[in-house]
């Protein structure tokens, strides 16, 4: 059966990539994407744990699987809400980032 090593590395790297993007990227939409990558990495970690717990006729431990399924649905709801918030902010202020506006009207460095 398939080895979990590639997915362990991918999952940890995804968390790192997502975290980096969340901190570094300015545009709100890109932050939302980075947050989803981070979440995807965490879910994959659950997947690796589930796979290692396979047994008794189950191809993967059902408990982490069930938790990831609820997690995916909640992540979708959170993403939808974040997108609506970003759109509304854009509608009202015209801004695409959440940087503080400086005196000259442009965000601080």
């Amino acid at each position, binding site marked *: 059966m398939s080895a979990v090593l590639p997915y362990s590395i991918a999952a940890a790297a995804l968390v790192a990539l997502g975290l980096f993007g969340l901190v570094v990227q300015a*545009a709100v939409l890109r932050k939302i994407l980075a947050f989803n990558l981070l979440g995807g990495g965490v879910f994959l970690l659950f997947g690796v744990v589930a796979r290692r717990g396979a*047994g008794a006729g189950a191809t993967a431990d059902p408990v982490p699987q069930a938790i990831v399924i609820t997690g995916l649905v909640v992540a979708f709801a959170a993403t939808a809400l974040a997108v609506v918030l970003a759109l509304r902010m854009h509608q009202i202020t015209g801004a695409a980032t959440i940087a503080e506006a400086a005196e000259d009207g442009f965000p601080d460095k």
Partner: protein
Amino acid sequence: MGGLVDWLLAALVLGAAAWTLAAPTGFAAVVGFVGFGLLVTLAWVRLGAVDVALTEAAIGAGATGVILLMAVVRLRGGAEEVSAATPGRAVMVAAGLLAGGVGLALALAVLALPDPAPGLAAAAMARRGELGLGNPVAAVLMGYRGLDTLLESVVLVFAVLAVWSMAPDRRWGGIPGPRFPRQEAGPLALLARLLLPIGLVIGIHVAWVGAEAPGGKFQGGTILAAMWVLAWVAGLVQPPAIASQAVRLALVAGPLAFLLAGFAGMALGEGFLAWPPGLAKPMILLVEAAMTLSVAAALALLVAGPPERAA
């Protein structure tokens, strides 16, 4: 050969993720993210978690892509603002070090897990029969972690309420989202006519087989929601006003049925959400049916967004 599949897939997943971060435009990033969702679906299959793969296919690759792409179209410009707000090199390096450290620690932690890993697979497989469910994941969702699933269904209702509350006061009670013109002819009209009935059948099928095989209310509900979105963008239906009683009832039917079943467990069984023996299967089927409806309603309303015009 199997190992090659896994390494290739893991590399492609990371490549798509890197593209999503580094893409030159928001649109390119979102398309990269949709590709990421598709690749992760395959990864879940290789990890033996077909239930999760099905959910990822429906929600990750399908629904999330739709809301993000629709948002990209409406978010305009701001290149100057974005570049001004992007942190300088020092912050980048610090963030890179922090993120790299977290990733490294996680990788080490996961690889250091004891072998064989402790797990609840045996318990879940052995006790799923008590609920009359053949699919152990469904049994965990309704039984062992039933409270999580109940709370999650409530989270969906609150998410819809939060999205609705983004509307200006004068729009409260109105109709969500933009109006799409009705397509009388052309490719989309054909697609809507052919895909809708097939999609409805597949959605109900996926929700129904969830008791015995991969599938269930979340996956089936998402497909049903997607079919409604197709009918909406093809101009066949208009979103209902959020003041409509029917919409609100559809939204809370699932959590309500779940709660009532929980209290029935107190009256007939051992406690809240304890499924009474003998009645477990029919009660779970009722809750699942109501939940499929509510998940479909909630996801469709989340895609449609806050009310934008008067009813």
